[in-house]
């Protein structure tokens, strides 16, 4: 029995991203394709998303010119690939406040958004610091925070403090303080409805970028594998590794159940297809009675 379907939907990508950005210490090891994606969860009369991407109107030119980000498509176009529209989305979990995750709230007019309170409080603090400490305040658009105020006024923004069970039936939110960001969040879907689930999925946000963050080479410590954190953290690598352990524990240490949304090789583990726009849809799991969107 499975209550929820989960898809990872690509909305843009960078073809050559330095590997050390996704994998701590992977210097001079070349480049990987970095897809930009969000996750969609459908079931129990809900349509939920993990993150909403960024708004091309605001950032598209800068990202294209400076960083080679290509082929951005709107949520309307991307969600159409699984037969949905942004107005179907009732819940959004914001894994963290970076512009490419929290930068497009206006396209989801009926959704209630969940974000960690600490993600906001610490960004406020970081933005108050002098220039020499500005490394800690990057990738945040004040405009996204302003749109957050408007959401809060409409009672569509919920600031949570710590973990929260059953935010939707059998879906839990977990926090990883001071890791990739100050209040990064991951989403735990217990698809069999049990507290100790044997069919659970962890949607990792940016706590995990690629498979090697969970199944990295362990030869250096005489192990088959070990966790290797992502390359970008305003918190600590220790907290990233411990968040990985928490996610792995929540899925019974089955690495394929920790879903990284910047991973191009999801196609090697899950059924997928490329849409007419040249973007990938990966089908992580299907609820009972739900039809495949990739076959």
């Amino acid at each position, binding site marked *: 029995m499975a209550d929820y379907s989960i898809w990872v939907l690509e909305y843009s990508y*960078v073809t*050559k*991203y*330095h590997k050390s*950005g996704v994998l701590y210490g992977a210097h001079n090891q070349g*480049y990987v394709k*970095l897809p930009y994606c969000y996750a969609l969860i459908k079931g129990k009369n809900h349509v939920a998303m993990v993150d909403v991407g960024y708004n091309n109107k*605001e*950032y598209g030119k*800068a*990202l294209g010119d*400076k*960083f*080679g*980000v290509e082929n951005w498509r709107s949520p309307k176009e991307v969600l159409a690939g699984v037969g949905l529209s942004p107005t179907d989305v009732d819940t959004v979990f914001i894994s963290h406040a*970076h*512009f*490419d995750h929290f930068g497009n709230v206006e396209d989801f007019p009926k959704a209630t958004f969940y974000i960690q*309170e600490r993600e*906001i*409080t610490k*960004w*406020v*603090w970081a*933005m*108050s610091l002098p*220039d020499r400490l*500005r*490394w800690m*305040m*990057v*990738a*945040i*658009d*004040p*405009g996204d*925070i*302003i749109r*957050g*105020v*408007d959401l*809060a*006024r409409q009672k569509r*923004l*919920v*600031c949570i403090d710590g973990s929260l069970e059953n935010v939707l039936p059998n879906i839990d939110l977990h926090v990883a303080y001071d890791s990739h960001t100050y209040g990064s969040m991951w989403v735990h879907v217990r698809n069999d409805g049990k507290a100790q689930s044997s069919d659970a999925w962890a949607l990792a946000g*940016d706590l995990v*970028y690629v498979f090697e963050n969970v199944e990295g080479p362990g030869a250096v410590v005489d192990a088959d594998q070990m966790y290797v954190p992502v390359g*970008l953290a305003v918190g600590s690598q220790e907290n990233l590794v411990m968040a990985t352990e928490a996610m792995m524990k929540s899925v019974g240490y089955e690495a394929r159940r920790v879903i990284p949304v*910047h991973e191009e090789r999801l196609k090697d583990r899950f059924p997928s297809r490329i849409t007419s726009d040249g973007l990938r849809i990966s089908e992580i799991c299907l609820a009972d009675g739900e039809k495949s969107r990739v076959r």
Partner: protein
Amino acid sequence: MPSSGRGMLDRAALVHRFDCPAVAEPALPQPDVADIDAAAAAALRRPYDALRRLIGQAAGLLVLAQATQRREIVDLPAVAVAREQWREVTATLADLSAPRGCERQVEHLIRAARLVGACLDALEASPTRERVDTSLALDRIAAAYRLLQLCSIDKLGLSMVDFRQSCCNCAPMTMRAS
């Protein structure tokens, strides 16, 4: 003018104040950056960055105040810090001579600073009220953001998002490599 037309204009003036973001302002013409030396660019960038961050701080406080309805949010030391930084940026702008071709940008920065000040005024007044009402402060800060957005000059580093350490920051490296 027929009275109905005048009435419409009067209503428009009442609904859309001078600082209303709904009153669209045209984007400023981009100055020729070749005419701007490094020192002048840095002088412009300093208040721009300060305002960008102040807008982020104020908006973050507004999110917390509105979402949690905890009045102590607006009494946090962060509000006092923001006020001090606002004084500094206001003083910097008063002394700033606009680089050639950037006069309108500096005008916009000064207007944005005034609006940030008005937002902080509204925030500081909130503890005296029963409920935290962010509407006035939100109007001000959204207008300040819009003005700052209009005077962004990407080539001089006047950009609303600092991408330098963000997860997309890769093309400069790939360009060197290819």
